[in-house]
């Protein structure tokens, strides 16, 4: 945490090295989170870049985070995604058919269900905003429950419940036969 405060202090002076380090550390988690939320690689790439641009604006306007860069960036990412959804609310969804089997998923994974990203993307739309965030943070941003709770301003118990309900909803959507 101390490192991050120092990193932020340097970032506020627009120290290129510090900014590069921030980008290096947070690009992937932000991308994963955003990708979970939008389900589309290209859009996720654009929105992730947008998150970093907003970080610069915040540094310029002295609105930058004081100590929790990780949580702050999530907040920005969340807003960027919301803005995106608002703009594209009526726009036709981009067709996407990337199956996990064809990509990086190892055979070790127990995914007997033929779950594709497209499935997930559709299923995600069923979730509440909080549920989406929990899922995206937990499985995209890779945040532990505790940190998700802090980031969202909820108790750990509440986050666990949100997660469980989100997963139940996804399961219901993805395998309707199994859900009651």
């Amino acid at each position, binding site marked *: 945490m101390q490192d991050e405060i120092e990193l932020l202090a340097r970032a506020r002076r627009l120290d290129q090295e510090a900014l590069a380090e921030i980008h290096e550390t947070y690009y992937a988690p932000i991308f*994963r989170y955003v990708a979970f939320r939008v389900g589309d690689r290209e859009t996720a790439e654009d929105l992730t870049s947008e998150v970093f641009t907003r970080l610069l604006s915040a540094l310029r306007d002295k609105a930058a985070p004081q100590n929790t860069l990780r949580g702050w960036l999530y907040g920005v990412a969340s807003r960027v995604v919301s803005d995106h959804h608002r703009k594209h609310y009526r726009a036709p969804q981009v067709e996407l058919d990337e199956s996990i089997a064809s990509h990086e998923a190892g055979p070790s994974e127990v995914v007997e269900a033929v779950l594709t990203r497209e499935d997930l993307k559709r299923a995600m739309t069923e979730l509440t905003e909080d549920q989406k965030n929990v899922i995206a943070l937990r499985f995209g941003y890779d945040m532990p429950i505790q940190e998700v709770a802090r980031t969202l301003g909820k108790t750990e118990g509440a986050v666990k419940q949100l997660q469980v309900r989100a997963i139940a909803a996804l399961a219901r959507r993805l395998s309707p036969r199994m859900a009651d």
Partner: protein
Amino acid sequence: MDAQLEWKLIECLAALENGESLEQILLRYPEEAARLQPMLAVAASLPALRMEPSQEARLKSRKAFLAQAAALEARRGPARSRLFARPLVTFASIALAFILIGGGTLAASASALPGDPLYGVKRIVENVRLSITPDDAARATLSAQFAQERIDEIDALLAAGREAEVEFGGIIQSIQASAWLVANVPVDIDDNTRIEGSPQVGLRAQVHGRTQDGMLTAISIVVEPGEEPAPAPSPTPEPQATPRPTPTPRATETPEPTRTPTPTRTFAPTLTPTASPTPSEVEFEGTVERADAQSWTISGVTVEVNAATEFRNSPGVGHRVKVKALNIGGQLIAVSIERIDAGGGEDGNTNGNDNQNDNGNTNDNGNENEDGNGNGNGNENSGGDGNETGNDSGGHGGDENNNENGNGNG
């Protein structure tokens, strides 16, 4: 989904996260396995559904991000980023001056005098200007300008009768017991003045003092060492050749043989160079009660005399004298002893001669001459002779003569 199932699912998800296999987890609640299984399957597949960023997109984003940052920094102000290259102190000083006080105040500080609230800012600004001047010659000019500024400030303080602590440096132009002239600023010396180094006209000194009621009293004076010529074997061997060069008839007038037996004065040269730790000069008047080769007692105060001691107007026991002495660790060493009661005037010239006459030790006299400067003595004598009618009314006349000559030589 009921609360019971929720609880079970939470527990199973935790187990899943801990790396337990799906089969293993489902064994915990066999009765719920059918309902838990699809949910756990989804949860287990979610990490795999995670999209990984491509290296290409990451690099593209990084490049754009850093370029935006650089553009932002450029807009923030080129002056500032240029200063970043300067030492931190410089930046900190400027930042302090500008941020805390503001640019307008900075200009206002230019006329600040010691003791003014803005005086600190003025000095900071000066230091900053010096530190950002890369050229040696320009820096020297600036430095001289600031040194003059110190002196102008003191003039202003003195004119206004203000009280303030000041510091300045300059060439010592004259040294009197109670007042020096340094860089045209009269500096009062009092008992508490600490003097470091070997004071000498023409050397540089750093004066730290206090202005009050139009006077500057020195707290300390540090004399910078100059290239002092070694206490010279000197071009005045003549007195040695002629043990009795001065046929001055007035020798008789002075009841002075007391002082004369000076053969023991071997310690004499020690005073001149550097024997002093931190001498201060004292000045007092009194009546000579005792006088011998090594020390005189004047109104109860004993002062050492030596070859460097200047005797004016043939002082002797019973005479009223003005003594200038150096206080070296509590011991007073006479710089000059001047007879100031009436009648000493005519002796002004005799004095030196007298010494020479009576001293068995000619070497010693040689030294004395050197200290006073050979030329000076010559002038003194002839000048004194010529002027005698004008001067002989009192000791002071002779004194002035002496001083003038002394200054001229220095």
